[in-house]
Protein backbone atom coordinates (compact mmCIF):
# COMPACT_ATOMS: atom_id res chain seq x y z
CA UNK A 1 0.00 0.00 0.00
CA UNK A 2 2.84 2.38 0.84
CA UNK A 3 4.51 1.49 -2.46
CA UNK A 4 1.27 2.24 -4.32
CA UNK A 5 0.96 5.55 -2.49
CA UNK A 6 4.57 6.41 -3.32
CA UNK A 7 3.93 5.59 -6.96
CA UNK A 8 0.84 7.82 -7.06
CA UNK A 9 2.63 10.72 -5.37
CA UNK A 10 5.64 10.48 -7.63
CA UNK A 11 3.80 10.05 -10.90
CA UNK A 12 0.37 11.70 -10.82
CA UNK A 13 1.61 15.23 -11.47
CA UNK A 14 1.74 14.54 -15.19
CA UNK A 15 0.85 12.09 -17.94
CA UNK A 16 2.37 8.58 -17.66
CA UNK A 17 4.40 8.92 -20.84
CA UNK A 18 5.85 12.25 -19.70
CA UNK A 19 6.65 10.78 -16.30
CA UNK A 20 8.47 7.91 -18.05
CA UNK A 21 10.50 10.42 -20.07
CA UNK A 22 11.26 12.47 -16.96
CA UNK A 23 12.38 9.39 -15.04
CA UNK A 24 14.78 8.42 -17.78
CA UNK A 25 16.11 11.78 -18.98
CA UNK A 26 17.79 12.80 -15.72
CA UNK A 27 19.94 9.71 -15.21
CA UNK A 28 20.68 9.31 -18.91
CA UNK A 29 21.84 12.95 -19.05
CA UNK A 30 24.14 12.19 -16.14
CA UNK A 31 25.56 9.26 -18.09
CA UNK A 32 25.99 11.44 -21.17
CA UNK A 33 28.09 13.91 -19.16
CA UNK A 34 30.60 11.14 -18.59
CA UNK A 35 30.46 10.06 -22.22
CA UNK A 36 31.33 13.57 -23.36
CA UNK A 37 34.05 13.89 -20.73
CA UNK A 38 35.67 10.73 -22.06
CA UNK A 39 35.27 11.78 -25.70
CA UNK A 40 36.72 15.24 -25.03
CA UNK A 41 39.69 13.68 -23.22
CA UNK A 42 40.21 11.36 -26.18
CA UNK A 43 40.24 14.41 -28.50
CA UNK A 44 42.66 16.31 -26.25
CA UNK A 45 45.06 13.40 -25.67
CA UNK A 46 44.60 11.67 -28.99
CA UNK A 47 44.24 8.30 -27.25
CA UNK A 48 41.27 6.11 -26.33
CA UNK A 49 40.75 3.82 -23.35
CA UNK A 50 37.62 1.68 -23.79
CA UNK A 51 38.25 -0.30 -20.59
CA UNK A 52 38.29 2.85 -18.47
CA UNK A 53 35.24 4.16 -20.28
CA UNK A 54 33.36 0.92 -19.59
CA UNK A 55 34.36 1.12 -15.92
CA UNK A 56 33.11 4.70 -15.62
CA UNK A 57 29.90 4.03 -17.54
CA UNK A 58 28.81 0.93 -15.63
CA UNK A 59 29.63 2.51 -12.26
CA UNK A 60 27.69 5.65 -13.10
CA UNK A 61 24.70 3.63 -14.37
CA UNK A 62 24.39 1.71 -11.11
CA UNK A 63 24.90 4.89 -9.10
CA UNK A 64 21.37 5.81 -10.21
CA UNK A 65 20.23 3.34 -7.53
CA UNK A 66 22.18 5.25 -4.87
CA UNK A 67 20.60 8.60 -5.71
CA UNK A 68 17.08 7.22 -5.91
CA UNK A 69 17.18 4.80 -3.00
CA UNK A 70 19.05 6.95 -0.48
CA UNK A 71 17.49 10.31 -1.32
CA UNK A 72 14.08 8.78 -2.03
CA UNK A 73 14.07 6.99 1.30
CA UNK A 74 15.05 9.80 3.53
CA UNK A 75 13.03 12.45 1.71
CA UNK A 76 9.81 10.63 2.67
CA UNK A 77 9.89 12.28 6.10
CA UNK A 78 10.49 15.75 4.69
CA UNK A 79 7.91 15.45 1.93
CA UNK A 80 5.19 14.12 4.23
CA UNK A 81 6.00 16.67 6.90
CA UNK A 82 6.71 19.85 4.92
CA UNK A 83 5.30 19.59 1.41
CA UNK A 84 2.12 17.56 1.83
CA UNK A 85 1.69 17.93 5.61
CA UNK A 86 0.25 14.43 5.93
CA UNK A 87 2.76 12.97 8.35
CA UNK A 88 0.52 13.21 11.39
CA UNK A 89 -2.20 11.19 9.68
CA UNK A 90 0.17 8.49 8.51
CA UNK A 91 2.03 8.45 11.82
CA UNK A 92 -1.09 7.87 13.91
CA UNK A 93 -2.41 5.15 11.60
CA UNK A 94 -1.93 1.53 12.74
CA UNK A 95 1.14 0.82 10.62
CA UNK A 96 4.85 0.90 11.27
CA UNK A 97 6.26 4.17 9.95
CA UNK A 98 9.54 2.34 9.26
CA UNK A 99 7.73 -0.13 7.00
CA UNK A 100 5.82 2.73 5.39
CA UNK A 101 9.09 4.45 4.45
CA UNK A 102 10.47 1.21 2.98
CA UNK A 103 7.31 0.86 0.90
CA UNK A 104 7.54 4.43 -0.37
CA UNK A 105 11.21 3.91 -1.23
CA UNK A 106 10.51 0.72 -3.16
CA UNK A 107 8.74 2.75 -5.84
CA UNK A 108 11.80 4.88 -6.38
CA UNK A 109 13.99 1.77 -6.55
CA UNK A 110 11.71 0.29 -9.21
CA UNK A 111 11.85 3.47 -11.31
CA UNK A 112 15.63 3.61 -10.83
CA UNK A 113 15.92 0.00 -12.02
CA UNK A 114 14.25 0.98 -15.27
CA UNK A 115 16.60 3.93 -15.71
CA UNK A 116 19.65 1.72 -14.99
CA UNK A 117 18.48 -0.85 -17.53
CA UNK A 118 17.95 1.79 -20.20
CA UNK A 119 21.32 3.39 -19.48
CA UNK A 120 23.21 0.08 -19.66
CA UNK A 121 21.35 -0.93 -22.83
CA UNK A 122 22.19 2.40 -24.43
CA UNK A 123 25.82 2.01 -23.44
CA UNK A 124 26.04 -1.49 -24.87
CA UNK A 125 24.16 -0.94 -28.14
CA UNK A 126 24.95 2.69 -28.96
CA UNK A 127 28.31 3.34 -27.35
CA UNK A 128 29.93 -0.08 -27.63
CA UNK A 129 30.50 -0.55 -23.91
CA UNK A 130 31.86 -4.09 -23.52
CA UNK A 131 29.54 -5.58 -20.94
CA UNK A 132 29.83 -9.35 -20.67
CA UNK A 133 27.18 -11.09 -18.65
CA UNK A 134 26.72 -14.85 -18.64
CA UNK A 135 23.92 -16.83 -17.05
CA UNK A 136 26.40 -18.44 -14.65
CA UNK A 137 27.02 -15.00 -13.12
CA UNK A 138 23.31 -14.35 -12.61
CA UNK A 139 23.08 -15.69 -9.01
CA UNK A 140 26.11 -13.62 -7.96
CA UNK A 141 24.72 -10.54 -9.71
CA UNK A 142 21.26 -10.96 -8.18
CA UNK A 143 22.69 -11.52 -4.70
CA UNK A 144 24.96 -8.48 -4.97
CA UNK A 145 22.15 -6.31 -6.36
CA UNK A 146 19.73 -7.27 -3.59
CA UNK A 147 22.35 -6.82 -0.87
CA UNK A 148 23.38 -3.49 -2.34
CA UNK A 149 19.80 -2.23 -2.37
CA UNK A 150 19.34 -3.55 1.17
CA UNK A 151 22.38 -1.48 2.26
CA UNK A 152 21.13 1.59 0.41
CA UNK A 153 17.68 1.52 1.94
CA UNK A 154 19.17 0.95 5.39
CA UNK A 155 21.41 3.98 4.92
CA UNK A 156 18.42 5.96 3.69
CA UNK A 157 16.42 5.04 6.78
CA UNK A 158 19.31 6.09 9.03
CA UNK A 159 19.14 9.48 7.35
CA UNK A 160 15.35 9.50 7.64
CA UNK A 161 15.76 9.05 11.37
CA UNK A 162 18.11 12.05 11.43
CA UNK A 163 15.73 14.12 9.31
CA UNK A 164 13.04 13.86 12.01
CA UNK A 165 15.11 16.38 13.93
CA UNK A 166 16.38 18.69 11.17
CA UNK A 167 14.81 20.87 8.51
CA UNK A 168 17.22 23.31 6.97
CA UNK A 169 20.03 20.84 6.35
CA UNK A 170 17.97 18.05 4.81
CA UNK A 171 18.82 19.09 1.27
CA UNK A 172 22.48 19.49 2.18
CA UNK A 173 22.54 15.92 3.48
CA UNK A 174 20.62 14.74 0.42
CA UNK A 175 23.39 16.03 -1.79
CA UNK A 176 26.34 15.45 0.48
CA UNK A 177 25.91 11.81 1.41
CA UNK A 178 25.57 10.50 -2.17
CA UNK A 179 28.47 12.81 -3.07
CA UNK A 180 30.66 11.02 -0.52
CA UNK A 181 29.70 7.68 -2.05
CA UNK A 182 30.32 9.05 -5.55
CA UNK A 183 33.90 9.94 -4.69
CA UNK A 184 34.98 7.26 -2.24
CA UNK A 185 33.18 4.09 -3.37
CA UNK A 186 35.02 3.35 -6.60
CA UNK A 187 31.98 4.30 -8.68
CA UNK A 188 33.75 6.15 -11.48
CA UNK A 189 37.41 5.45 -10.85
CA UNK A 190 39.26 2.60 -9.13
CA UNK A 191 40.30 3.16 -5.53
CA UNK A 192 43.94 3.23 -6.64
CA UNK A 193 43.34 6.66 -8.22
CA UNK A 194 42.29 8.17 -4.88
CA UNK A 195 44.94 9.50 -2.50
CA UNK A 196 46.16 6.86 0.00
CA UNK A 197 44.43 8.55 2.96
CA UNK A 198 41.09 7.96 1.22
CA UNK A 199 41.50 4.18 0.93
CA UNK A 200 40.57 3.64 4.57
CA UNK A 201 37.38 5.67 4.11
CA UNK A 202 36.53 3.75 0.96
CA UNK A 203 36.97 0.35 2.56
CA UNK A 204 34.74 1.35 5.49
CA UNK A 205 31.77 2.07 3.19
CA UNK A 206 29.85 -1.10 2.16
CA UNK A 207 28.92 0.36 -1.21
CA UNK A 208 32.58 0.20 -2.25
CA UNK A 209 32.35 -3.59 -2.22
CA UNK A 210 29.03 -3.49 -4.01
CA UNK A 211 30.37 -1.41 -6.88
CA UNK A 212 33.47 -3.56 -7.06
CA UNK A 213 31.37 -6.71 -7.38
CA UNK A 214 29.15 -5.08 -10.03
CA UNK A 215 32.24 -4.13 -12.02
CA UNK A 216 33.64 -7.66 -11.72
CA UNK A 217 30.39 -9.33 -12.80
CA UNK A 218 29.61 -7.05 -15.74
CA UNK A 219 33.18 -6.30 -16.88
CA UNK A 220 35.10 -9.55 -16.34
CA UNK A 221 37.58 -8.85 -19.14
CA UNK A 222 38.43 -5.37 -17.84
CA UNK A 223 42.10 -4.97 -16.96
CA UNK A 224 41.64 -2.16 -14.46
CA UNK A 225 43.01 -2.79 -10.99
CA UNK A 226 40.31 -1.71 -8.56
CA UNK A 227 42.36 -1.95 -5.37
CA UNK A 228 40.24 -4.79 -3.94
CA UNK A 229 41.70 -7.66 -5.90
CA UNK A 230 42.89 -9.31 -2.69
CA UNK A 231 39.21 -10.17 -2.00
CA UNK A 232 37.48 -13.02 -3.84
CA UNK A 233 33.94 -12.63 -5.19
CA UNK A 234 32.56 -14.66 -2.32
CA UNK A 235 34.65 -12.68 0.16
CA UNK A 236 33.17 -9.43 -1.12
CA UNK A 237 29.67 -10.87 -0.97
CA UNK A 238 30.21 -11.88 2.66
CA UNK A 239 31.55 -8.39 3.46
CA UNK A 240 28.51 -6.88 1.77
CA UNK A 241 26.16 -9.12 3.75
CA UNK A 242 27.89 -8.27 7.03
CA UNK A 243 27.88 -4.55 6.39
CA UNK A 244 24.29 -4.68 5.14
CA UNK A 245 23.17 -6.33 8.37
CA UNK A 246 25.19 -3.80 10.36
CA UNK A 247 23.52 -0.88 8.60
CA UNK A 248 20.11 -2.52 8.98
CA UNK A 249 20.56 -2.75 12.75
CA UNK A 250 21.94 0.79 12.75
CA UNK A 251 18.91 1.99 10.82
CA UNK A 252 16.58 0.47 13.41
CA UNK A 253 18.48 2.21 16.20
CA UNK A 254 18.89 5.59 14.53
CA UNK A 255 15.28 5.62 13.31
CA UNK A 256 13.88 4.78 16.73
CA UNK A 257 16.12 7.36 18.40
CA UNK A 258 15.22 10.09 15.91
CA UNK A 259 11.55 9.29 16.21
CA UNK A 260 11.73 9.28 20.02
CA UNK A 261 13.58 12.61 20.17
CA UNK A 262 11.21 14.19 17.65
CA UNK A 263 8.14 13.02 19.59
CA UNK A 264 9.64 14.28 22.84
CA UNK A 265 10.31 17.70 21.28
CA UNK A 266 6.95 17.80 19.48
CA UNK A 267 8.66 17.96 16.09
CA UNK A 268 7.08 15.02 14.31
CA UNK A 269 4.75 17.29 12.35
CA UNK A 270 6.66 20.57 12.49
CA UNK A 271 6.56 22.76 9.41
CA UNK A 272 9.52 24.99 8.69
CA UNK A 273 8.95 26.01 5.05
CA UNK A 274 12.08 24.14 3.96
Amino acid at each position, binding site marked *: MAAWLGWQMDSNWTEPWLFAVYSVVKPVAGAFILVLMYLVFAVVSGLQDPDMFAFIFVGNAFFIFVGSAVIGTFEVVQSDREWYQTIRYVYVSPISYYTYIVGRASTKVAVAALAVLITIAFGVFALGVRVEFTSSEFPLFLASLLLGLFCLISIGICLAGVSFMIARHTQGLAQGIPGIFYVFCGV*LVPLTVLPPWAWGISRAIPLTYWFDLIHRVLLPANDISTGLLDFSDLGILVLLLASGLTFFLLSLGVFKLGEYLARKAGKIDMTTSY
Partner: protein
Amino acid sequence: MSVGTPAVPSGLSHRLRLNLKAVVGRAYPRVIGANREPSWVFFEAVLPLLGIAAYVFIYQALANRVLLDPALTEAQRAATIAGTNALIGGVVLGGTMTAFWLNVLWSMASQLYWEKEIGNLQLYMMAPMSRMALLGGMAVGGMFMTSVRAMTTLVVGVVVFSVILQVTNPFLVLAVFFVTLIALYGMGMALASLYLLWGREAWHLSALLEEPIYFASGFNFPAGGFARMGGWGRAVLTFATFIPATVGLDAMRQMIFPGAFSLPIDAFGVKFTPEIELGILLVLAVVFLLLARYALAYLETLARREGRLTSRHQ
Protein backbone atom coordinates in the same frame (compact mmCIF):
# COMPACT_ATOMS: atom_id res chain seq x y z
CA MET B 1 -16.45 70.53 7.96
CA SER B 2 -15.13 67.57 6.01
CA VAL B 3 -11.92 65.78 6.82
CA GLY B 4 -9.71 65.69 3.77
CA THR B 5 -8.55 62.26 2.63
CA PRO B 6 -4.81 61.85 2.83
CA ALA B 7 -3.06 62.34 -0.47
CA VAL B 8 -1.92 59.10 -2.04
CA PRO B 9 1.74 59.41 -2.98
CA SER B 10 2.32 59.09 -6.68
CA GLY B 11 4.79 60.08 -9.27
CA LEU B 12 7.95 58.62 -10.65
CA SER B 13 10.15 59.35 -7.62
CA HIS B 14 7.70 57.62 -5.29
CA ARG B 15 7.46 54.57 -7.54
CA LEU B 16 11.25 54.42 -7.83
CA ARG B 17 11.71 54.61 -4.06
CA LEU B 18 9.03 51.97 -3.52
CA ASN B 19 10.55 49.56 -6.01
CA LEU B 20 14.07 50.13 -4.68
CA LYS B 21 12.81 49.33 -1.20
CA ALA B 22 11.23 46.18 -2.64
CA VAL B 23 14.56 45.21 -4.21
CA VAL B 24 16.35 45.73 -0.90
CA GLY B 25 13.63 43.88 0.96
CA ARG B 26 13.84 40.82 -1.30
CA ALA B 27 17.63 40.88 -1.36
CA TYR B 28 17.97 41.21 2.42
CA PRO B 29 17.13 37.59 3.37
CA ARG B 30 19.60 36.32 0.79
CA VAL B 31 22.41 38.70 1.71
CA ILE B 32 22.08 38.78 5.49
CA GLY B 33 19.74 35.99 6.55
CA ALA B 34 21.32 33.21 4.52
CA ASN B 35 24.74 33.89 6.04
CA ARG B 36 23.66 34.12 9.68
CA GLU B 37 24.22 30.48 10.42
CA PRO B 38 27.78 29.45 9.55
CA SER B 39 26.79 25.92 8.49
CA TRP B 40 26.56 27.21 4.91
CA VAL B 41 30.36 27.06 4.75
CA PHE B 42 30.21 23.27 4.98
CA PHE B 43 26.97 22.49 3.18
CA GLU B 44 27.17 25.01 0.35
CA ALA B 45 30.88 25.66 -0.17
CA VAL B 46 32.68 22.47 0.87
CA LEU B 47 30.19 19.71 0.00
CA PRO B 48 29.94 20.75 -3.68
CA LEU B 49 33.65 19.91 -3.85
CA LEU B 50 32.71 16.23 -3.63
CA GLY B 51 30.91 16.36 -6.95
CA ILE B 52 33.81 18.28 -8.47
CA ALA B 53 36.29 15.79 -7.01
CA ALA B 54 34.53 12.86 -8.67
CA TYR B 55 34.92 14.42 -12.11
CA VAL B 56 38.48 15.55 -11.39
CA PHE B 57 39.42 11.97 -10.51
CA ILE B 58 37.95 10.78 -13.83
CA TYR B 59 40.28 13.03 -15.79
CA GLN B 60 43.20 12.09 -13.55
CA ALA B 61 42.46 8.38 -13.96
CA LEU B 62 42.29 8.71 -17.74
CA ALA B 63 45.51 10.72 -17.80
CA ASN B 64 47.32 8.28 -15.51
CA ARG B 65 46.52 5.40 -17.85
CA VAL B 66 47.67 7.38 -20.88
CA LEU B 67 50.92 8.40 -19.19
CA LEU B 68 51.72 4.76 -18.41
CA ASP B 69 52.15 4.09 -22.13
CA PRO B 70 55.92 3.66 -22.69
CA ALA B 71 55.58 4.61 -26.37
CA LEU B 72 54.55 8.17 -25.47
CA THR B 73 56.95 10.90 -26.58
CA GLU B 74 57.94 13.76 -24.28
CA ALA B 75 55.86 16.19 -26.34
CA GLN B 76 52.79 13.94 -26.06
CA ARG B 77 53.41 13.54 -22.32
CA ALA B 78 53.59 17.33 -21.81
CA ALA B 79 50.50 17.86 -23.96
CA THR B 80 48.54 15.25 -21.97
CA ILE B 81 49.53 16.85 -18.65
CA ALA B 82 48.67 20.35 -19.88
CA GLY B 83 45.39 19.18 -21.39
CA THR B 84 44.42 17.36 -18.20
CA ASN B 85 45.17 20.49 -16.14
CA ALA B 86 42.90 22.51 -18.45
CA LEU B 87 40.13 19.93 -18.22
CA ILE B 88 40.41 19.70 -14.42
CA GLY B 89 40.41 23.47 -14.18
CA GLY B 90 37.33 23.52 -16.38
CA VAL B 91 35.61 21.09 -13.99
CA VAL B 92 36.38 23.37 -11.02
CA LEU B 93 35.07 26.36 -12.99
CA GLY B 94 31.99 24.40 -14.04
CA GLY B 95 31.40 23.34 -10.45
CA THR B 96 31.42 27.00 -9.47
CA MET B 97 28.89 27.79 -12.19
CA THR B 98 26.75 24.89 -10.96
CA ALA B 99 26.13 26.84 -7.76
CA PHE B 100 24.74 29.74 -9.80
CA TRP B 101 22.59 27.50 -11.97
CA LEU B 102 21.10 25.74 -8.96
CA ASN B 103 20.43 29.13 -7.36
CA VAL B 104 18.69 30.30 -10.54
CA LEU B 105 16.56 27.13 -10.61
CA TRP B 106 15.65 26.82 -6.96
CA SER B 107 15.89 30.32 -5.48
CA MET B 108 14.75 32.31 -8.50
CA ALA B 109 12.58 30.25 -10.81
CA SER B 110 10.95 28.10 -8.14
CA GLN B 111 10.65 30.89 -5.59
CA LEU B 112 7.19 31.99 -6.69
CA TYR B 113 6.06 28.36 -6.65
CA TRP B 114 7.28 28.06 -3.04
CA GLU B 115 5.52 31.32 -2.17
CA LYS B 116 2.33 29.93 -3.68
CA GLU B 117 2.68 26.73 -1.63
CA ILE B 118 3.27 28.67 1.59
CA GLY B 119 0.41 31.05 0.84
CA ASN B 120 2.44 34.25 0.49
CA LEU B 121 1.99 34.75 -3.24
CA GLN B 122 -1.33 36.57 -2.97
CA LEU B 123 0.34 39.01 -0.52
CA TYR B 124 3.01 39.77 -3.09
CA MET B 125 0.39 40.20 -5.79
CA MET B 126 -1.54 42.69 -3.66
CA ALA B 127 1.54 44.72 -2.69
CA PRO B 128 1.96 47.95 -4.68
CA MET B 129 5.49 47.30 -5.97
CA SER B 130 6.45 46.15 -9.43
CA ARG B 131 6.77 42.38 -9.89
CA MET B 132 10.10 43.01 -11.64
CA ALA B 133 11.35 44.75 -8.48
CA LEU B 134 10.34 41.65 -6.55
CA LEU B 135 12.27 39.37 -8.89
CA GLY B 136 15.11 41.86 -9.24
CA GLY B 137 15.68 41.88 -5.49
CA MET B 138 15.72 38.08 -5.48
CA ALA B 139 18.26 38.15 -8.32
CA VAL B 140 20.56 40.69 -6.65
CA GLY B 141 20.46 38.87 -3.34
CA GLY B 142 20.89 35.49 -5.01
CA MET B 143 23.87 36.71 -7.01
CA PHE B 144 25.60 37.99 -3.89
CA MET B 145 24.82 34.94 -1.78
CA THR B 146 25.87 32.47 -4.45
CA SER B 147 28.98 34.44 -5.37
CA VAL B 148 30.26 34.13 -1.81
CA ARG B 149 29.71 30.38 -1.89
CA ALA B 150 30.97 29.89 -5.43
CA MET B 151 34.17 31.86 -4.84
CA THR B 152 34.90 29.77 -1.76
CA THR B 153 34.40 26.59 -3.78
CA LEU B 154 36.57 27.96 -6.59
CA VAL B 155 39.47 28.96 -4.34
CA VAL B 156 39.40 25.70 -2.39
CA GLY B 157 39.05 23.71 -5.62
CA VAL B 158 42.02 25.45 -7.25
CA VAL B 159 44.17 24.84 -4.17
CA VAL B 160 43.10 21.25 -3.48
CA PHE B 161 43.36 20.06 -7.09
CA SER B 162 46.49 22.11 -7.87
CA VAL B 163 44.96 23.83 -10.87
CA ILE B 164 47.32 26.15 -12.75
CA LEU B 165 45.55 29.29 -13.95
CA GLN B 166 46.84 31.50 -16.76
CA VAL B 167 44.42 34.44 -16.87
CA THR B 168 45.06 36.35 -20.10
CA ASN B 169 42.63 39.24 -19.68
CA PRO B 170 41.29 39.65 -16.12
CA PHE B 171 39.01 42.60 -16.99
CA LEU B 172 37.35 40.68 -19.79
CA VAL B 173 36.99 37.65 -17.50
CA LEU B 174 35.18 39.81 -14.94
CA ALA B 175 33.01 41.41 -17.62
CA VAL B 176 32.03 38.00 -19.03
CA PHE B 177 31.35 36.69 -15.53
CA PHE B 178 29.03 39.53 -14.53
CA VAL B 179 27.16 39.63 -17.84
CA THR B 180 26.73 35.84 -17.61
CA LEU B 181 25.19 36.28 -14.18
CA ILE B 182 22.82 38.98 -15.41
CA ALA B 183 21.74 36.84 -18.35
CA LEU B 184 21.36 33.73 -16.13
CA TYR B 185 19.27 35.53 -13.54
CA GLY B 186 17.24 37.15 -16.32
CA MET B 187 16.50 33.62 -17.50
CA GLY B 188 15.56 32.73 -13.94
CA MET B 189 13.15 35.67 -13.82
CA ALA B 190 11.52 34.50 -17.05
CA LEU B 191 11.17 30.97 -15.65
CA ALA B 192 9.74 32.35 -12.40
CA SER B 193 6.88 33.92 -14.31
CA LEU B 194 6.17 30.57 -15.97
CA TYR B 195 6.00 28.86 -12.61
CA LEU B 196 3.12 31.14 -11.56
CA LEU B 197 0.88 28.86 -13.59
CA TRP B 198 2.16 25.53 -12.42
CA GLY B 199 1.90 23.36 -9.38
CA ARG B 200 4.13 20.34 -8.76
CA GLU B 201 5.19 20.43 -12.39
CA ALA B 202 7.30 23.45 -11.45
CA TRP B 203 9.29 21.49 -8.88
CA HIS B 204 9.78 18.58 -11.25
CA LEU B 205 10.82 20.88 -14.10
CA SER B 206 13.47 22.44 -11.90
CA ALA B 207 14.69 18.96 -10.95
CA LEU B 208 14.70 18.01 -14.64
CA LEU B 209 16.77 21.05 -15.61
CA GLU B 210 19.78 19.99 -13.55
CA GLU B 211 21.69 17.15 -15.23
CA PRO B 212 20.50 17.84 -18.80
CA ILE B 213 21.72 21.45 -18.51
CA TYR B 214 25.02 20.34 -16.96
CA PHE B 215 25.40 18.12 -20.01
CA ALA B 216 24.25 20.56 -22.71
CA SER B 217 26.13 23.55 -21.29
CA GLY B 218 29.41 21.71 -20.78
CA PHE B 219 29.77 22.30 -17.06
CA ASN B 220 32.30 19.47 -16.79
CA PHE B 221 33.87 19.50 -20.24
CA PRO B 222 34.42 22.12 -22.97
CA ALA B 223 31.15 22.63 -24.86
CA GLY B 224 33.19 22.94 -28.03
CA GLY B 225 33.57 19.16 -27.86
CA PHE B 226 29.98 18.84 -29.12
CA ALA B 227 31.04 20.28 -32.47
CA ARG B 228 33.24 17.23 -32.98
CA MET B 229 30.39 14.78 -32.38
CA GLY B 230 28.55 15.10 -35.68
CA GLY B 231 25.04 16.37 -36.38
CA TRP B 232 23.52 15.58 -33.00
CA GLY B 233 26.41 17.31 -31.26
CA ARG B 234 25.90 20.47 -33.30
CA ALA B 235 22.16 20.37 -32.58
CA VAL B 236 22.84 20.18 -28.85
CA LEU B 237 25.41 22.97 -29.11
CA THR B 238 22.98 25.21 -31.00
CA PHE B 239 20.37 24.73 -28.28
CA ALA B 240 22.96 25.18 -25.55
CA THR B 241 24.14 28.51 -26.96
CA PHE B 242 20.89 30.04 -25.74
CA ILE B 243 21.82 29.12 -22.18
CA PRO B 244 24.07 31.88 -20.84
CA ALA B 245 26.17 29.45 -18.79
CA THR B 246 27.36 27.66 -21.94
CA VAL B 247 28.75 30.75 -23.60
CA GLY B 248 30.00 32.29 -20.34
CA LEU B 249 31.89 29.16 -19.33
CA ASP B 250 33.40 28.77 -22.78
CA ALA B 251 34.66 32.37 -22.77
CA MET B 252 36.12 32.05 -19.27
CA ARG B 253 37.80 28.74 -20.15
CA GLN B 254 39.46 30.33 -23.16
CA MET B 255 40.81 33.18 -21.06
CA ILE B 256 41.85 31.16 -18.01
CA PHE B 257 43.20 28.08 -19.82
CA PRO B 258 44.39 29.49 -23.14
CA GLY B 259 45.41 27.09 -25.85
CA ALA B 260 43.90 24.31 -27.86
CA PHE B 261 42.85 22.32 -24.80
CA SER B 262 40.04 24.72 -24.00
CA LEU B 263 38.24 23.44 -27.17
CA PRO B 264 36.34 26.68 -27.83
CA ILE B 265 32.90 26.62 -29.43
CA ASP B 266 33.23 26.50 -33.19
CA ALA B 267 30.12 27.34 -35.21
CA PHE B 268 30.60 26.25 -38.83
CA GLY B 269 34.18 27.39 -39.01
CA VAL B 270 33.70 30.55 -36.92
CA LYS B 271 35.49 30.26 -33.63
CA PHE B 272 33.67 31.99 -30.80
CA THR B 273 36.27 34.27 -29.26
CA PRO B 274 35.66 35.70 -25.77
CA GLU B 275 34.74 39.06 -27.35
CA ILE B 276 32.11 37.46 -29.57
CA GLU B 277 30.79 35.50 -26.61
CA LEU B 278 30.55 38.67 -24.51
CA GLY B 279 28.42 40.17 -27.26
CA ILE B 280 26.19 37.08 -27.31
CA LEU B 281 25.83 37.27 -23.53
CA LEU B 282 24.82 40.94 -23.70
CA VAL B 283 22.14 40.08 -26.24
CA LEU B 284 20.92 37.16 -24.10
CA ALA B 285 20.80 39.37 -21.00
CA VAL B 286 18.63 41.96 -22.74
CA VAL B 287 16.39 39.32 -24.32
CA PHE B 288 15.81 37.42 -21.08
CA LEU B 289 15.13 40.56 -19.06
CA LEU B 290 12.60 41.78 -21.64
CA LEU B 291 11.08 38.28 -21.80
CA ALA B 292 10.79 38.25 -18.02
CA ARG B 293 9.05 41.63 -18.05
CA TYR B 294 6.40 40.67 -20.60
CA ALA B 295 6.04 37.03 -19.55
CA LEU B 296 5.45 38.07 -15.95
CA ALA B 297 2.64 40.44 -16.93
CA TYR B 298 0.99 37.98 -19.31
CA LEU B 299 1.28 34.92 -17.12
CA GLU B 300 0.08 36.74 -14.04
CA THR B 301 -3.06 37.73 -15.96
CA LEU B 302 -3.50 34.15 -17.17
CA ALA B 303 -2.98 32.72 -13.68
CA ARG B 304 -5.55 35.14 -12.20
CA ARG B 305 -8.05 34.30 -14.92
CA GLU B 306 -7.65 30.55 -14.37
CA GLY B 307 -7.59 30.86 -10.60
CA ARG B 308 -4.17 29.28 -10.25
CA LEU B 309 -2.48 32.06 -8.31
CA THR B 310 -3.70 30.73 -5.02
CA SER B 311 -3.98 26.99 -5.75
CA ARG B 312 -1.77 25.00 -3.41
CA HIS B 313 -0.59 21.40 -3.24
CA GLN B 314 -1.57 20.79 -6.89
